[in-house]
């Protein structure tokens, strides 16, 4: 007999929504401006960069990997696209493509090192994180790129929806989440991502080209980081060589909070969106409460540990 308990998603998948509800209640009670449409619009704009990075991160974590280079690749992409537009006067679409191309290429590099040389993703991306950071600093001479063509910031503009401002970039983020959700849930190649994370050896023996699945995931993640680069330029209006530092950990936090297991093969990408919003709400709410940013870092850190603990315990208990 199937009971209600069978039908409920596991705790790890409800986690982000519970955390979101708790955070909203606390901030709603303790601050005046939290529950306003304008504030929620702002939170979503603050979340869109981390949100899109976290899609790529989710894909990699689903294969039981981790990508420490995500934030640095995002910074690299935004420097490349703004700098080639500024220095060579390249047309905006081409400059954007070059920026996204740079992050995708790094994704390919990560993927090749993981699949061909069989290096652990943790070490590979720790390396490429530093390489990307250095290239970003060298290429930009550690200077912020301020001359940004208008076409590059368009996604930061807002339109009115029922009287509330919504950024185009937020719409893009939500669309990317829905597309990825569909892909992972309803197509064979999407299910193979789960299978690889679940039991790579069985998946290979069944005849699924697991290395191709993995490589595809890393390339796709690089593509998402590139789109996040564009969103970052759109949001800040500059190419920032020191960007991506908080995003790096925030993206991983969003994935883990969102209920995707670090052991691979379990998780839903929409949970990551909830996780990203939790991170955004926390940062926003704590700022409204006047809490210093060091405490925000502290709380995010504790949250990750709690989320990972829930993951580990539910995995043991679910046997």
């Amino acid at each position, binding site marked *: 007999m199937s009971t209600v308990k069978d039908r409920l998603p596991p705790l790890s998948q409800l986690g982000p929504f519970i955390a979101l509800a708790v955070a909203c209640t606390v901030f709603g009670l303790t601050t005046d401006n939290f529950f306003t449409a304008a504030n929620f619009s702002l939170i979503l704009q603050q979340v869109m960069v981390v949100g899109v990075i976290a899609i790529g991160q989710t894909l990699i974590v689903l294969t039981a990997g981790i990508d420490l280079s995500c934030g640095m690749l995002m910074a690299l992409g935004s420097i490349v696209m703004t700098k080639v537009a500024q220095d060579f006067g390249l047309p905006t679409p081409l400059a954007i493509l070059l920026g996204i191309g740079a992050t995708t290429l790094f994704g390919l590099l990560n993927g090749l090192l993981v699949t061909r040389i069989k290096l652990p993703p943790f070490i590979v991306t720790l390396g490429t994180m530093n390489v990307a950071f250095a290239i970003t600093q060298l290429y930009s001479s550690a200077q912020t790129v301020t001359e940004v063509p208008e076409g590059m910031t368009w996604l930061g503009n807002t339109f009115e929806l029922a009287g509330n401002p919504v950024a185009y970039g937020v719409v893009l983020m939500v669309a990317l989440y829905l597309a990825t959700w569909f892909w992972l849930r309803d197509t064979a190649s999407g299910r193979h991502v789960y299978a690889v994370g679940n039991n790579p050896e*069985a998946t290979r023996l069944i005849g*699924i080209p697991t290395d191709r699945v993995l490589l595809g995931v890393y390339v796709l993640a690089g593509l998402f980081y590139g789109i996040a680069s564009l969103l970052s330029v759109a949001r800040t209006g500059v190419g920032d060589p020191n960007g991506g530092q908080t995003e790096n950990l925030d993206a991983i936090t969003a994935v883990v909070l969102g209920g995707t297991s670090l052991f691979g093969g379990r998780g839903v990408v929409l949970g990551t969106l909830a996780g990203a919003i939790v991170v955004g709400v926390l940062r926003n709410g704590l700022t409204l409460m006047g809490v210093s940013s060091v405490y925000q870092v502290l709380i995010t850190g504790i949250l990750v540990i709690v989320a990972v603990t829930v993951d580990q315990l539910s995995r043991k208990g679910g046997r």
Partner: protein
Amino acid sequence: MAAPQIVMQARGLVKRYGQVTALDGADFELRAGEILAVIGDNGAGKSSLIKALSGATIPDEGEILLDGRPVHFRNPMEARREGIECCYQDLAVAPAMTIAENLFLGRELRREGVLGNLLRMLDKKKMLEIAVERMADLKVGIRSMTQAVETLSGGQRQCVAVARAAAFARHVVILDEPTAALGVKEGNMVLELIRRVRDKGLPVILISHNMPHVFEIADRIHVARLGRRAAVLNPKRISMSDTVAVMTGAMKPEDIPADCLA
């Protein structure tokens, strides 16, 4: 009496890994409608043999015939296309995925029309229907095909793995240690399932270390030794201890009584 129909055959298979010769001219023969057990000590070459037959490895020399026709598998997918399904020890399933998803992993069905062609959307309903039907066919008593494999007991899980291979095989089912790590009752459940697979008309290659299970279920026993086939034995004539003696080399193949060979 007509000669038995041979489904799969291998002649003189050689496989070397650096200095190590895993297969040293191994022969193999599988007849229609039988359960052929493959036994052998560690390093006797039984997994290399099975890997060659299932496309997981490419032999350096020798030939493999399927229904008398030479085949050259470069990967497991090509063997599967010929109707050969394999179920590997402990490695057969993705635990967090549902039973239906596991059955169709790597052979998913897409929807008809635009949803399937353009969006490549899966036909989950149809896959579920077929999963229910095939599992009922094999009399695997599991109530819901949409539950995750990890919610099942070890025996049920192994049944899913065996059924995964059996439900789609058209030619040969290869089972690698399907009863290892199972209790008595659960092991029997899997043996019952293997019998039903054979009774459906599919020949089964069963790799096992469990002698009582081999003697309970096998029609013939292929003994691998030192990279070759030492003998093919008839479990109804030879004793378990003599079989082990052949396997370890204590009994020379030429000393086996003729009526014990199969």
